[in-house]
């Protein structure tokens, strides 16, 4: 028995002190878009370049915290996907290494950081997901009734207590929505609008895209979420939804990609970033089933998107959003959420 305990102790020793992290010989990537999507894109990258990639999918908040905690000993080389305002914050914390790849010429300047801290690889545009069955029901009462095409349409009494949107305290999508409204209407008017909208809101969801599922399942009439999430629900899930955009203008997230400061495989990381900005890589957005809109000029957009000229896109300021995240979230929580009765 003594022998057995000695073996156990020896094992414990090895377990406790033998823990050395092996430096990986391959590129390590933190991915913030969908895992199924990442599989398609990364395997294509591996095929194209022969570089082996280890990757893991995490939400943007988790990734940012992770990179922040790993600041002294970075575990990953590249961060890809997730809204650029998170990248703005990451750059503020000194977690990113600027890099302007040759293929940046494919990308319009407004979808890139001027200093090269991050580069845009896709767009996610805020839209309305409206349940078709609900529309049909309402059209029986009022034949002129159609899906909402403006922010003001959301205040229609037919939608009272029937709209879901995410909570900016927990969702990057919601931050984009609120920031969009502020950038269109100005700070005070935007919050006046949000207070009126509050009456229409059934639930502020924690995840960005939950409202789309709820609308698809008929739990509510409208979900205010990203357009690509709506298209995913229409074409992949066959939910009875219609995608529309507000005519006053709508905001968008720019999905970023960036080189992590202190990366161990800088060369491979730069190859990856450059490759992500190529037309070839961005043509894949149409094939993954997640409907991200490509940033590269000439890349094929996925089905279901209207031509970009048909959508009134504002000049969305992601940098301002990232820098004012606290102020936006705190004001919204204080003025809207904490005063909410239901």
């Amino acid at each position: 028995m003594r022998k057995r305990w000695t073996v156990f102790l020896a094992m414990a020793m090895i377990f406790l002190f033998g823990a050395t992290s092996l430096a990986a010989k391959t590129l390590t990537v933190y991915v913030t878009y969908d895992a199924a999507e990442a599989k398609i894109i990364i395997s294509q990258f591996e095929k194209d370049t022969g570089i082996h990639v280890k990757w893991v999918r995490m939400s943007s908040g988790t990734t940012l915290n992770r990179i922040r905690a790993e600041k002294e000993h970075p575990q990953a080389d590249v961060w890809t996907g997730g809204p650029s305002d998170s990248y703005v914050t990451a750059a503020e914390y000194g977690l990113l290494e600027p890099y302007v790849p040759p293929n940046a010429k494919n990308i319009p300047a407004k979808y890139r950081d001027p200093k090269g801290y991050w580069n845009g690889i896709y767009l996610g545009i805020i839209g309305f997901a409206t349940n078709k069955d609900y529309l049909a029901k309402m059209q029986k009462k009022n034949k002129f009734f159609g899906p909402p095409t403006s922010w003001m349409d959301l205040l229609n009494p037919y939608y009272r207590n029937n709209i879901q949107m995410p909570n900016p305290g927990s969702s990057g999508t919601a931050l984009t929505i609120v920031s969009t409204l502020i950038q269109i209407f100005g700070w005070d008017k935007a919050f006046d609008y949000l207070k009126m909208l509050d009456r229409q809101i059934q639930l502020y969801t924690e995840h960005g895209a939950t409202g789309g599922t709820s609308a698809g399942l008929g739990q509510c009439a409208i979900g205010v979420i990203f357009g690509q999430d709506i298209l995913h629900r229409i074409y992949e899930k066959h939910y009875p939804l219609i995608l529309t955009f507000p005519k006053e203008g709508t905001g968008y997230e720019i999905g970023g990609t960036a080189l992590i400061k202190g990366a161990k495989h800088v060369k491979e990381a730069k190859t990856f970033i450059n490759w992500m900005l190529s037309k070839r890589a961005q043509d894949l957005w149409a094939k993954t089933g997640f409907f991200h809109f490509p940033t590269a000029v000439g890349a094929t957009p996925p089905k279901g998107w209207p031509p970009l000229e048909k959508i009134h896109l504002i000049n969305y300021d992601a940098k301002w959003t990232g820098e004012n995240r606290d102020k936006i979230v705190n004001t919204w929580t204080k003025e809207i959420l904490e005063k909410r009765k239901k």
Partner: protein
Amino acid sequence: MPSMLYKLGGNVVNTEAKEKRDFFFNLAVWLLIGSILLFVVYPLAYIFIEVFFPEGMPTLRLFGEILQRHYFIRGFINSVKVATVVASLSVVIGYLFGYTVTRVDITRRKRKIFDLLATLPILSPPFLLALSAVLLLGYNGLITKGLLGITDFSIYGFKGLVIVETIGLFPIAYLTIKGTLQSIDPSIEDAASSLGATRWYVFRKVTLPLSMTGVANAFLLTFSLSMADFGNPMLLAGSRFPVLSVQAYFQITAQFHIDKGAAVALLLLLPALAIFFIQQKIIHSRSYITVTGKPSSLHPQPHSKLAKGILVTLCIVVLGIVAVFYATVLWGGFTDIWMINHVFTFKHFAYIWEAGREYLFDTLILAGIATPISGIIGIFIAFLIIRTKLRTNKFMEMSTMLNFFLPGTVVGIGYMLAFNRYPLLLSGTAYIIILNFIFRYIPVGIRSGISILLQIDPSIEEAAMNLGANRMQTFRKITMPLISPAFFSGLVYTFERSLTAISAIVFLVSPSWYIFTVFILDELSIGRIENASAAVVILFIIITAFIWLAKFVTRKMGEIPTEIST
């Protein structure tokens, strides 16, 4: 008994050898304390530094900011409210099942089915119950809208959380209470009965008081689990009904304030600690020694038809509700598109096999390594706490418990902060996940171990010691076989928790070691309910197989004391 004396008697003369072997016992204790310091206290220290020393100077600024916010105060009240109601309901339902299974003269088959189904809710990631609740009782729920035609019923908030958490947590109360009821010496109840006491009187005056340790432990466990629960409120509480665990998580993951998130989570500790101390007082204030030999496992006694009818009906009603919740999930896994196209399909399972296979294997390997280590450490600490007077006992109990009470998010962040630097650079390795599993779920083994040990007369162990056995031998040959039921309930639970853990692990996964539940959460957050359901069905099968195996082994182990005495 005579042969036992003979076997252990061989060591009596050699006290020197005994002392030498006690050296290993002491070494084990010190190694344990070292590990606890390193993997419980050290990461937490980083959290405290983050909250109270954000710029190197001690400050209460963060705590003050949190307390000023109406929203967090509401979160605090909500968390305590939900935990209290959930723990009370869980204990009542757990006792109902524990008593019916161990005491009522129902058929063997019924007993088996009750036992099996009452542990069912333990078997799946908690957020799936919430999903099921939304699909059944949501605005467009199968029951609410489909069957009853109600559209203004809201499952979100207090009601939904209480329903879902009670379903998810009563099995833990049941397992704890059952373990205690099984180890009460039946001759006491028999004596009361033969002296003319009615069943009801025996229950009130004998069974219930003797099982109060189990009740107290069950309440403690379910209360703290409800407080720290994160998966269910994530879907059901939301912004309408803020609870602290979720608010802490979002402070960190959505608003990027690690410091504030940690401060919010520390708020969770206060009520949990208060409950913990109350329980300590209850457990230690009375003597519950009733076992003088091998505990009997079952002791059914005749009950009146009415009592039996009521108990069985109540059990069936509860199990019916559980069954509906789980059937919904199963149905979801085999349905093409939920609420849109209810065609039977295997395609979600094919998808999980294709996309999630690697994650599943990783998870099984990590949980498989962590489970036995955690189980052994847990029972060993329980033994130390109850049977020795080491000065470090209190520290061990408190510190391991602390890790259990804290929301996983905080523990995860603590690990992330503490083990990403020398001397212990564990970030990105399997070790960080395994260690998190081990040290997070030790209290389960400790609690159930204590609950049983309190009822085993120490004189059995003392006899072994007097006859020359050292402490390690005593623990292995005497204590361990007696407490094996508790040991395995701890083991099964640890494995289950490891397979379904999410809130801490989400910060610790790495490209080399990914976890199945994080994959399920990804599926859920994009709204692929059917895939998530399929994944949970797979997890369900694995855990069921493990429980079956554990029961088989327990039965084998339960035979050991018989072998010694013959």
